[in-house]
């Protein structure tokens, strides 16, 4: 079975326990304003152009079957581009990059096992992330099953906004869920992400009910999620059984990716201070939660 992958990152240190390899899958049901992986939002392949790396050699224009490239560094005609990736393949400067490659679980597995010694030494493993990886739940289940059969510890990094049956598919092969909680107030959640949080919170409760290991991740984004911190703490305390909580400070380093993809940059301006993060972490501790410091 194949899935649409936009990146495989080795030596991922903050995506679960130990040293991990993280597989990023295309497509996400949410549109968080602060999204730092815009290349993961759409389910279809996308072409990125890093204009500052372009040397105007013209190889891309010659390779494009649709005439969508010109020799200008700003020259992707998005109307005509079908994201076939032929231009990226010939670009000598890697100024063009295709996000979204169909990959087979059998082809992917050996790559994910390459760092097995690091997983073993560090208690790490493989994390599936995105986008929202559970939009491709069947692919995830097959990949996770193969990883488990190879003795690799697994994690699923999810926004939770997928049907419960998607969770059911991966549950038997997932050691820990890294579960995003962005807001408890539904209207705030809609304002931040474009979607209601009802399904997300229901799924989280179901995961707890069936005894899954869950680490909750709270993106701290000033003027968006910051006021939700007390409510999230209270909610998680009441829910109980959460393995750990991590407050993720918002950073705005993804701006160039929006530009490269020809997407509207929605990143908020204000960054959190270290004091704000420390206060949020303390609030989580005050709710009896175990905090992994950021």
């Amino acid at each position, binding site marked *: 079975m194949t899935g649409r992958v936009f990146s495989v*990152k*080795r*030596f991922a*240190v903050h995506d679960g326990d130990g040293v991990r390899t993280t597989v990023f899958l295309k497509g996400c049901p949410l549109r968080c304003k602060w999204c730092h992986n815009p290349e993961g939002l759409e389910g279809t392949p996308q072409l990125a152009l890093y204009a500052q790396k372009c040397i105007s050699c013209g190889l891309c224009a010659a390779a494009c079957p649709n005439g969508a490239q010109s020799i200008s560094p700003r020259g992707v005609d998005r109307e005509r581009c079908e994201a076939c990736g032929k231009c990226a393949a010939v670009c*000598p400067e890697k100024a063009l990059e295709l996000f979204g490659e169909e990959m087979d679980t059998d082809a992917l597995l050996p790559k994910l096992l390459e760092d097995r010694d690091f997983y073993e*030494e560090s208690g790490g493993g493989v994390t599936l992330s995105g986008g929202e990886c559970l939009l491709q739940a069947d692919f995830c289940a097959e990949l996770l099953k193969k990883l488990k059969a190879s003795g690799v510890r697994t994690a699923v990094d999810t926004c939770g906004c997928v049907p419960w049956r998607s969770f059911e598919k991966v549950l038997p092969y997932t050691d820990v869920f890294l579960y995003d909680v962005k807001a408890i107030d539904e209207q705030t959640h809609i304002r931040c992400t474009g979607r209601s949080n009802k399904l997300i919170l229901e799924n989280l409760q179901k995961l707890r009910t069936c005894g899954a290991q869950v680490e909750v991740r709270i993106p701290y984004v000033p003027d968006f999620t910051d006021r939700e911190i007390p409510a999230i703490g209270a909610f998680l305390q009441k829910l109980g059984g959460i393995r750990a909580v991590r407050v993720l400070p918002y950073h705005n380093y993804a*701006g160039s990716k929006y530009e490269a993809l020809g997407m509207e940059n929605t990143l908020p301006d204000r960054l959190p201070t270290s004091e704000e993060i420390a206060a949020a972490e303390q609030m989580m501790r005050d709710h009896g939660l175990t905090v*992994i*410091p950021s």
Partner: protein
Amino acid sequence: MWKTFDLDKPYIERKYHDPDEPFNAYRRRAYHGWTCDEATGEDDEEIRAGLEALEPEIASLPHPVAKARAIDYVLKHTRIAVSEHDYFPCFYSWNCLPNRITFKKWKAEVFDEKLPEIGELMHDMNESGACAIWPDFDHVVPDWGSLVTLGFPGIRERARQYRAKREAAQPLTDEQRAYFDGIEEEYTAVIDFVDRLYRYASEQTHEKAKLLAPSLKRLRDGAPETIFDAMQLMYLYFMISESVDFYQVRSLGNGLDHTLRPFYERDLANGTFTRDEIREFLTYFMMQWQAIGNYWGQPLYLGGTNADGNCRICDLSHDIIDMRHEAGMYNPKIQIKLNDNIPQDFLKKVLSYIRGGDSSFVFCCEPGHRRAIMAYGATAEEAQDFDLRGCYETGVRANEVSTGTGYVNPLKAVLYAMRDGWDAAYGKQIGVHTGAPETLDTYEKFRGAVLAQIAHLADLTFRCADAYDPYLSYINPSSLYSATIATSLERAYDGYQGGVKFNNSSILICGIASAVDAMMAVRELVYEEKALTIAQFNEILDANYEGHELLRRRILCSPHKYGVGDPLADACAKEIADFFSSYVQKRKNVRGGVYKATMHSAMQFVRQGKKTGASPDGRLAGQEISKNADPTVGMDLGGVTALVHSVLQLTPSDYHESFCVDLMLHPSAIQGEDGLNAMKSILDVYLHGGGMSVQFNVFDASTLRDAQAHPERYRNLQVRVCGWNVLWNNLSREEQDAYIKRASAV
């Protein structure tokens, strides 16, 4: 009198250099710092004049004695200082002044008169950049155990006893007599010098002199009694050896913590000093090397494993790294012997210092080093207690000399294979004839030609080293060092000439990644795609890729590079690495030892790069070649785990002298406790995978600024921020600015 370091630090920093004088990394010793009391002695010019007057007197003497007289002259006449700002005396003349009438003269005699052809060959090898070679007196560590147990007078007395024993059995040969006379005279010169320092310190009234004078008196008369005495002895031995005698001292202590620990424990138990006082002495002690500031850095190592299996890391080890860290020193540099038994709190402390930007720590894996050392005949006990004798060089403690010979440049070997041995940049046939380009009609033939060229460069190195090796002690007798080594005394033979148990030579390979990447490019373009012939490729290289920039960029973007886990490139690297180590390690040297393979580069990756024309890996003429076992700069796109795997498949411990890789990480990739654990897991994989030495480079703001100015050199630099990562070059200028600003605050 305590807690004075912050006040004294600016003074000590000026001890050996005047910051207003021009900085020359390679001629540091030519400068002076403190002027010293002019009444205490002469300046350099006066001493040089005195040495010239002495020259006829010593001209007919055996070299060990002649050298000892010249050293005695300098030690009797150099200005000295005992400052209220320092616990350690100052040598005004520290530029190996005796060399003018000893070393330089004798070296010229050997290479100009006795071995003129070798002199000419070495000139060609050095100037072409094919192989940097010179007689090496640098990688020496005395038996510190003997020195701190016996002191200078005890070392001299022990030598007298060995002499008497030998004389009782049979008359000494002229050579043996010269050997013992040299030791007698040089150690007498040292002891007289200590007496001179003592008398001068006794005249000073400041608090530090009151502590220093009695210590010097003890060292004049016998062995060190306190940890302060032991540090004083180490400093004096170092300064006399490196700055007068012309033998480098490539470790402070045989494990500084191990050598000083008996004094440390005794002083604390007796109440001689408090722990805080010892920590203060340690700070002043280490600060001497920051003041000296040689560009090659002064190594010392910590830890190791006792015969009972316990790690040697102790409170003193913590004090050493803590005080160095608190004082913000970049020198000395510290090697940590790494094994599973290392205390985790110590390891994590070191890793956190590294992560904070202190990249001067090197980890040396004990199992790999032991395997390497036992491969040439050392016992398990000798291997257990191995020494580190430089940046990464290793060997048997107090019983091995391994002289560096040549740095073989394998990228030149690739270029020679493409031109039948002709060096286009130097304009001379340096390589061996391996066939005109058109005859290399398969990659297999080309590959074979490259290996033949590497073997040829190694052979040339053997030829030179084997020719000059018999003259090492003729050029530079090692009385100061030899007297510390029991085996040398037993054999009555210069330790540097064959007087220790393991009299080895090392030969280095410098630039393996560049060579592999170049071979991969030839394979791809010439033999697979048939886009070019070798002759056409040579023309492009002659033009330094001018008019062929697209081709060059294509080459740079090829996935077949060493260090990214590419099976083709890694297999090629493995073949070259195995070929070199097995080829050179079969070879015996002429001092009764063996050649040991080495994979590290010192500064040669820059110097040899300057002498190497454009190469098929896309490298332009004059650019640096790869260093150590590292990938070519900008080519390690597979990340740290892939690099570690590429490196480990080379079987590092097959390199019996040394093997090192640099791992580059960004601070954001190793933030928090998770990050420290990740760094530790890299070490664990490397240790358990058979690694030798490894060091981390954690990028800081200044590196990021450089990356901004030279993006082509940092194509692999990733900025990892919590749950995501981006390539540095993919950030906009403004975002990079923001990141630099943030990194500055780390």
